[in-house]
């Protein structure tokens, strides 16, 4: 599948169908999920109505991390095989990834005010998400300061890969350092599960965010491929070279 799609023309063919499908799925799940989350689900006992922030916040935080994983994989492919499509993909994962991270930060702090009485706490989880945001921004900054595409792709890939090694370190160090945030309850095996009336809308929103991520990335890759083809087609003709002996 990946090998098949590695050819940009085939990829464009694929994305011609896939992009609208992802778009439609995003809209469907988003509407359904928002309905479940904002209207249907009950307010929580300790958080009150503020619990609804969770349906925006938690999927954003998850997608931010998922996007970084995708970014790292694309970077590895780009670095080792120098595949231009991987460059496009990596770049296109980073933009929504940064956006999700930002959203997780914003919704988290909006939630923090009612939940903990402050917009921000310098606790481990939040700090590590902030750092993730810094990594995303540096990654995008490298693309923007280096005009030569291939060079920018390689340098950005190096940063993304080193950054990935860094992520467990960050998580580990800040967890150790100071914690106030909710521990992972879904992702930890054996942790107390959530009641289904909360779990369902949450899952629906997670699906919606994931489709949104897919849709944004596909569009980014498409646009990038088209842009680089256009640049290639417009090339002026080369010089005529002749070799003469004396």
């Amino acid at each position, binding site marked *: 599948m990946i090998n098949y799609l590695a050819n940009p023309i085939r990829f464009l063919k694929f994305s011609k169908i896939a992009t609208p499908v992802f778009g439609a799925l995003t809209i469907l799940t988003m509407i359904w999920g928002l309905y479940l989350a904002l209207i249907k689900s009950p307010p929580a006992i300790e958080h009150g109505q503020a619990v609804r922030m969770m349906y925006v916040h938690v999927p954003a935080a998850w997608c931010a991390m998922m996007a970084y994983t995708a970014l790292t994989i694309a970077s590895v492919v780009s670095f080792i095989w120098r595949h231009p499509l991987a460059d496009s993909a990596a770049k296109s994962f980073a933009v929504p990834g940064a956006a999700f991270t930002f959203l997780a930060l914003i919704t988290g702090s909006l939630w923090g005010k009612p939940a903990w009485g402050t917009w921000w706490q310098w606790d481990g989880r939040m700090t590590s998400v902030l750092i993730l945001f810094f990594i995303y921004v540096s990654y995008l900054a490298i693309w923007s300061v280096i005009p030569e595409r291939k060079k920018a792709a390689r340098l950005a890939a190096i940063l993304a890969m080193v950054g990935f090694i860094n992520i467990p370190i960050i998580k580990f160090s800040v967890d150790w350092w100071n914690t106030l945030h909710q521990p992972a309850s879904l992702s930890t095996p054996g942790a107390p599960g959530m009641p289904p009336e909360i779990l369902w809308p949450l899952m629906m929103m997670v699906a919606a965010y994931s489709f949104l991520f897919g849709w944004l990335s596909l569009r980014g890759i498409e646009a990038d491929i088209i842009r680089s083809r256009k640049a290639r087609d*417009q*090339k002026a*003709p*080369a*010089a*005529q*070279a*002749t*070799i003469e002996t*004396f």
Partner: protein
Amino acid sequence: MKSLFPHMTHQVQLETESLALSRGDRSLIEELSFKLTSGDVLWTQGDNGIGKTTLLEALSGLRRPDHGTVSWNENGKAVQASRIIAYQPHKSYAKAALLTEEDLGFWANIYNSKHLVSEALNFVGLADFTKITTRDLSAGQNRRLALAKLIISQKPIWIMDEPAAAMDKTGAQLIDELISRHAERGGIAVIASHDTTRKLSAHTRKLVLRAAA
């Protein structure tokens, strides 16, 4: 003099095969194939902006071709560019704050040719300027320093980008002498220059780049 230009003990080759190079949206060179062997001198000529510098960078392994290949051979075996190439770029790469002899000495350290430094400085006419910083060298003196670096590198392939720019008459003769000595001892030289080409070895050739019609 002998020690500055020892005879080469290895056969070398520089070869391109359907090389294509471009910058931004401008395609500069396409389908260029040639092969140079020990003793060859190649003059690259063409108008400003035609792609000489870009080509020289590719020949030095500093620029990845769009298509095609550049290959470097020593005794029939493919090697990395950095093993056999010395490149004199258009701009000086001396450290402004170092004395002339320190700057050259540093590269001599890297190339294990400390013993050649003072002789090389003499040869390029900088003997009186070893104790001033390279920032203070005149334009032509700076080019001479770069020539000295070519010599002490002891590499078999010299790639030279407009070595004669800003050089006076004796400077231009010096370059000719350097190149023919280098060819005689079995080296290869590729030169980009707007000067008139001169036959500096038995195998001098000319690569002319002309704008497409």
